[in-house]
């Protein structure tokens, strides 16, 4: 069979049920194979949309997402999703067409050095040099993408090789001598960690996206509840611990709660699980958690002591390590009463500084209220995706996630335009779930073309645009830190989102009245098929509380 027909067999063997992509000259053979290949392919309108859809699929289902593109511009259009997947450790396999081997390096038509361009932002990549290599490369790509610290893997296939006849034999093993993720965690270190936790007077558990990736939410929850440990999650970790809850402090970091940030600031022991001490968490590094010792559990050894030196480093994945840590910790039989004083301090902050905003007295929709209204309209049951900006932070603050893989957003790269295609991917991956996107009016325009994909395939996402007419987060920074000198942040009343929706064959709605908002949202959700809802909110509202960039947690404002 042709190499591309073998490719279809490999995808099926990997359990792939859907891929996203857009054809071109260099991957014509692949697209020919799709005709009888038995793989569901969704034609997107821009490769970036396909890439983010594959990410959304992967984040919501925990399976590997797959995106296809042709050579040259098709491949370069994937740059943002690939980088995004790298930053947020999302398992996606990207398969690109390449020019014929005889044209490689000649600036052939639609030639781009895809392997070279993407090298710094992939977990690994394969340039196919012989058609016979293809099946093994595909399986290795999936293996690498999904195991250890997940991430994007790219396979670049020259057009002539993809048409070549090969002897296809199913591949049942992978041979990667240089790749052996350590999952188990060192038992001695784990015992040390248990002891340190039992002795701590002011401990905090700080959990990140690694817990979600390792499917370790149950272990995390059990561990946190094996004592009265306070727990906080990063933006990527939301849902890893069920919110709301007595022991839940809310999100931490730049727009986290005061309780979470102050607890980190005063902690004597911080146990980081699958989190990487990003600058959005630490603020000013030299003043971060000055009294704390650190336990750092991560499957990626390069994360440990990268930003903050760990006193007890544990290399292993959250699921394995937490399971063992629970056993070790229980064996000690620590006295929960020692945490009494710590909790009264934390509860003091919780009471004094709850997440709050000044609501409007009339029809005006405050952006925070919009998120609360959506929570109510969805019964807190939806998968929520978001773009990047103020709306993203309000979504993270005001929508409680009771389980992992409910919250799908672009954290590390902060990619505007992520939300809509990611919702599309999540909805394809989870057809029985309601999927809503909380979009920014700026961000949504960066991948609005995928509305056509949703309409054509009847992918019933509900996109709620938090329309403030601004690149709101930038406006906020200009207001707060640049003396209110607004520079290119006002987008006016453009476009007319209702008309845009209709042009794409999607139901469009405009909501402007707070008093009927919840019911109106319910109506939108009840509509069969994709819906784009333009929600007009207060234009100049700021996202608070906030640790100004480069400052310490104690310096939170708002």
């Amino acid at each position, binding site marked *: 069979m042709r190499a591309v027909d073998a490719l279809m067999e490999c995808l099926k063997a990997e359990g792939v049920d859907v891929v996203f992509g857009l054809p071109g000259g260099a991957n014509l053979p692949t697209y020919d194979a799709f005709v009888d290949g038995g793989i569901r392919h969704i034609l997107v309108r821009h490769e970036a949309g396909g890439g983010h859809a594959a990410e959304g699929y992967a984040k919501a289902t925990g399976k590997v997402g797959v995106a296809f593109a042709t050579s040259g511009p098709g491949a370069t259009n994937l740059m943002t999703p690939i980088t995004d997947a790298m930053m947020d450790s999302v398992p996606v396999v990207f398969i690109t067409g390449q020019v014929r081997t005889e044209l490689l390096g000649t600036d052939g038509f639609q030639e781009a050095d895809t*392997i*070279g361009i993407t*090298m*710094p932002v992939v*977990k*690994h*990549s394969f*340039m196919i*040099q012989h058609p016979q290599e293809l099946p093994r490369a595909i399986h290795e790509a999936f293996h*690498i993408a999904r195991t250890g610290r997940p991430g994007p893997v790219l396979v670049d296939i020259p057009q002539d090789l993809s048409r070549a006849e090969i002897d296809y034999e199913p591949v049942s093993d992978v041979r*990667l*001598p*240089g*790749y052996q993720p350590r999952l188990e965690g060192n038992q001695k270190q784990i015992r040390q960690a248990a002891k340190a936790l039992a002795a701590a007077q002011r401990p905090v558990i700080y959990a990140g996206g690694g817990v979600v990736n390792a499917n370790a939410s149950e272990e995390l929850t059990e561990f946190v509840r094996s004592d009265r440990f306070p727990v906080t999650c990063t933006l990527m970790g939301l849902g890893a611990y069920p919110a709301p809850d007595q022991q839940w402090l809310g999100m931490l970091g730049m727009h986290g709660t005061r309780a979470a940030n102050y607890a980190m600031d005063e902690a004597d022991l911080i146990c980081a699980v699958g989190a990487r001490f990003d*600058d959005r968490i630490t603020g000013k*590094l*030299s003043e971060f958690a000055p009294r704390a010792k650190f336990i750092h559990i991560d499957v*990626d*050894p*390069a994360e440990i*002591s*990268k930003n903050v030196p760990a006193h007890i480093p544990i290399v292993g994945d959250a699921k394995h390590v937490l399971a063992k840590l629970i056993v070790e910790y229980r064996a000690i039989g620590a006295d929960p009463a020692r945490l009494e004083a710590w909790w009264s301090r934390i509860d003091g902050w919780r009471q004094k500084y709850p997440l709050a905003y000044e609501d409007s007295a009339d029809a005006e929709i405050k952006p925070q209220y919009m998120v609360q209204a959506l929570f109510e309209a969805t019964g807190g049951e939806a998968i929520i995706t978001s773009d990047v900006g103020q709306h993203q932070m309000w979504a993270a603050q005001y929508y409680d996630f009771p389980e992992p893989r409910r919250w799908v957003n672009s954290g590390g790269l*902060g990619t505007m335009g992520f939300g809509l295609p990611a919702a599309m991917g999540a909805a394809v991956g989870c057809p029985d779930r309601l999927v809503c996107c909380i979009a920014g009016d700026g961000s949504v325009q960066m991948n609005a073309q995928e509305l056509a994909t949703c309409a054509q395939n009847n992918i019933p996402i509900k996109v709620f645009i938090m329309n403030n007419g601004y690149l709101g*987060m*930038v406006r906020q*920074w200009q207001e*707060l*830190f*640049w*003396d209110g000198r607004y520079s290119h942040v006002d987008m006016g009343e453009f476009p007319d989102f209702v008309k845009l929706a209709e042009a794409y064959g999607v139901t469009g709605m405009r909501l402007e009245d707070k008093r009927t908002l919840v019911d109106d949202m319910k109506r939108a959700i009840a509509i069969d098929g994709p819906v784009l809802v333009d929600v007009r909110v207060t234009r100049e509202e700021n996202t608070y509380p906030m640790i*100004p*960039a*480069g400052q310490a947690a104690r310096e939170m404002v708002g």
Partner: protein
Amino acid sequence: MGEPGTKEPLSLEELEASSNLRTGRKHVLSILVENKSGVLTRIAGLFARRGFNIDTLTVGPTEDEQISRVTLTVDGALHPIDQVTKQLHKLINVLKIRDLEPADTVARELALFKVAADGVQRGELMQIAEIFRGKVVDVTKRAVIIEVTGTTDKIEAFENMVRPFGLIEMMRTGEIAISRGRSET
């Protein structure tokens, strides 16, 4: 939205106050890799991304034809190398890395020197070459080519000695290094 949010210009001192740890010594990294295309670019890219200068780099086959060895030196006084070695470990085609301890390592480099040698100077030059156990590998009327093998220090010392004669050209391979004793590098 990542940058400090103020209008104040950033001073050069602030820019230079980097918090990363430097070791203060030269590091010789011996890296075993699968012999696959692109490996070297991946390794070099990790250094380039951090703005690190690789001082020397050699690549060659090993006793196993599927495996190559990369020997790379980098100045730990200028660059914190801990993060970069951890990142190197993450490359799928990298099998093994050793940060060689100078005391437990035999390191050698080969250098070729083309030196101007008009008549009178030639004898003196030959003498110096002999002291350094250099080999004259080519002689023409106006120049000689001398081959020297040794540690980086020795080669630099030789360079200093012949420079006054008129050093026309110098080529160095960069170090290769092997650990002492029975165990593998």
